[in-house]
């Protein structure tokens, strides 16, 4: 019998604000925070903007952390505190971090090279080299918060956040850790913003409406979303009540050319079925869906087809939410943000509104909150390169 994996703490910082209260307020208000960014020359995005890390990270050792790393450290600190984990002075070899990201810190990498070619290699700071490896955010977070256990960075495109959470859940089941902070992080910098636009991923109209007939693209979003995971046994032993349980995971790569969804959605449907089956459930046991849809014409179509293939007629009346209408497409953080939103929904018994949405094409989308139809929530994270991941979570019950 594999140990049951539970969530005991949450942390989130996004353009909707710092902390899970701010996130929930924004979600349930039905608004969006996707707008032209002052920081990045009016580029459309969900921008965290200026933020002060001091309340969570103090003053020491913060200057060397790049933007994405600060977001990660803040969310991790929030989750640690919320879980009532008791810190060990010299750091805990059984406490670790598994983080999903798409880029790590591409701005740091590009800046490093830019200095090299514009001023010459001898003008490059050796200390900045440390921030150019993709595992730098996780490594820096480990130093800042003395995380001496497992430390992994997982990249599976837009599915990274869910792959990371599943990796962490497995490590706990295998007994390789007692506590794992896990989720996703992504910063939006001039490089990612430009890339989004040049690759045709951005909405030209500026109106990001997942699943809508009028949708014409996505907008990048930044942030970090972290859960504290442990086994049910560990939580019980230290007198902490679990909030949610991590059930099954499914991942399918659709072997389609890079930067392209498979519009027929077989891979996405297979990932959903796998996650449900690995949860020892059937599709009719799912009470709500957190979609991956971000406004992409092809991607949202793929997800709609996949959902119809799996749920059939029962899809009408099965509440669905697309939180990227609020948060934007936050890449490595996306799936993790979706998971935390599922947690918020389980606690309240209802899915939050999807900003500016209405039911269409047999999908039960709404700009109002919707009561859950059951206690198991499906979370999707489908990547535009063909990688598809799904996860099922539910409220904790003994």
């Amino acid at each position, binding site marked *: 019998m594999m140990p049951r994996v539970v969530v005991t703490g949450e942390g989130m910082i996004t353009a909707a604000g710092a902390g899970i209260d701010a996130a929930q307020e924004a979600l349930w208000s039905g608004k969006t925070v996707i707008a032209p960014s002052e920081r990045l020359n009016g580029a459309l995005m969900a921008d965290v903007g200026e933020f002060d890390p001091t309340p969570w990270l103090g003053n020491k050792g913060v200057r060397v952390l790049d933007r994405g790393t600060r977001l990660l450290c803040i969310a991790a600190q929030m989750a640690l505190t919320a879980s009532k984990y008791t810190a060990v002075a010299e750091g805990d*070899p059984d406490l670790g*971090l598994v983080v999903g990201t*798409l880029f790590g810190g*591409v701005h740091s*990498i*590009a800046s*490093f*090279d830019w200095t*090299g*070619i*514009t001023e010459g*290699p*001898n003008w*490059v*700071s*050796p200390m900045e080299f*440390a921030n*150019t*490896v*993709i*595992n*730098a955010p*996780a*490594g*820096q977070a*480990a*130093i800042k*918060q*003395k*995380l*001496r*256990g*497992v*430390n*992994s960075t*997982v*990249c*599976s*495109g837009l599915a*990274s956040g869910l*792959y990371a959470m599943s990796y962490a859940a497995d490590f706990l089941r*295998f007994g*390789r850790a007692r506590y794992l902070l896990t989720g996703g992080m992504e910063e939006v910098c001039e*490089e990612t913003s*430009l*890339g989004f636009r*040049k690759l*045709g991923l951005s909405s030209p109209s500026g109106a990001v409406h997942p699943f809508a007939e009028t949708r014409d693209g996505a907008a990048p979003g930044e942030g970090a979303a972290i859960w504290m995971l442990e086994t049910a046994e560990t939580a019980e032993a230290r007198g902490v009540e679990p909030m949610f349980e991590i059930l099954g995971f499914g991942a*399918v*790569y659709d*072997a*389609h*050319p*890079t*930067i392209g969804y498979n519009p027929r959605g077989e*891979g996405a449907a297979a990932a959903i079925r796998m996650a449900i089956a690995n949860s020892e459930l059937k599709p009719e046991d799912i009470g709500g869906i957190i979609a991956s849809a971000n406004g992409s014409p092809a991607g949202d179509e793929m997800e709609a087809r996949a959902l119809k293939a799996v749920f059939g007629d029962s899809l009408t009346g099965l509440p669905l939410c697309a939180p990227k209408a609020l948060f934007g497409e936050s890449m490595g953080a996306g799936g993790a943000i979706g998971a935390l939103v599922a947690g918020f929904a389980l606690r309240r018994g209802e899915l939050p509104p999807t900003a500016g949405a209405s039911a269409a094409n047999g999908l039960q989308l709404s700009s109002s909150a919707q009561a859950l139809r059951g206690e198991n929530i499906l979370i999707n994270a489908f*990547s535009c*390169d*063909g*990688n598809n991941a799904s996860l099922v979570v539910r409220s904790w019950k003994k």
Partner: protein
Amino acid sequence: MRRVAVTGIGVVSSIGTGKDAFWSALLGGTSGISTVSSFDSAAFPVHIGGEVKDFDPLKYLTPERAAVTGRATQMAIAAAKLAVADSRLDFDAVDKNRVGVSMGTTSGEPLFVEQYNDAKKAGGEEAVPAEAMGRYPCHTMPAQVALELGAHGPVTIIPTACAAGNYAIGYGYDLIRTGRVDYVLAGGADAFSRITYTGFSRLGAIAPEKCQPFDKNRKGMIPGEGSGMLLLEPLDAAVARGAKIYAEVLGYGVSCDAHHMTAAHPAADGAIRCMQNAMKEAGVTTDDIDYISAHGTGTPTNDRLESLAIRTLFGERASRVPMSSIKSMLGHTMGAASAIEAAACSLALDTGWIPATMNHEETDPDCGVDIVANKSRKTNPKIILNNAYAFGGNNACLCLKRYVA
């Protein structure tokens, strides 16, 4: 949980591409170090590296596919295809829904960042080619491998820098033993780049002439490139199809120094714990280990601390467990390193030969380990530890065992 076997090996390296060429060059002590030619190193204080000079992507990819893939990705695809061919598996007949790809890297495709910056410098932001931006993210590397092989299982890359290969092979091992998939192409890849060279050069870490792990006068590491990919499958299935089994994966251990981004913990804390974790999971003790594939970069600090870790764990037996670093021949191939090293370990278990630490001239009394100086040796190892330590304090140790039918 199922037992996991290594049944295919693919390597792209500066001393040879393909398992046989690589292995005979390795045992022969061949050096893959040469003068850097992929960029102008004039402005740097050093000019050598472990470039793969003869890599021809068109041997493994069509011209159309070669045009849209970065160098590290091309090497990974080559190594993956070589591993599949080596395994003699009827790959066409395999259920591709049960094939996964698990990779590791340090830099991904940094040449695209360089291309982005070069274009930006020449013509400003708008001059940057869209293709470069789409091919940069590191998740495209295992995705391209999956695309080439038609794999439909889980696909991921774990960019834990210079320990990534071990993390990737470990994840592949987890996927197989839990029954999630039946085949995994697992390993790592990294390409030579001015970004990486600049970084190590500015850290003063690059040796001017040769890489001499554990030598008293060692002067540093040498950046290299390449790819190592293993085919992993359930041991029982491998036996049933009459496959050649190079080795069994017994488990792996990870840890984080949580100390400094580029300098290892001064008491080798993370290195010690990841070996302990690996052995605990593998169900073995230090008495069972009869060869260690060292991280052995050749820097004064790494080799000293790594030796300290071994002496701390193995006690008085430390000087009797052979430990060698093939970075002495290949240089440091970054995310590919521990994967290429895992390939070498699998071959060592299969053939009985362990590779040497080359360029050894003077013993460092501080190290106190048997580094298999200059000549490969037939020791018939049974249980091996493969160590890797990375920036960010990411450490990983893979434990492999000889398979006897």
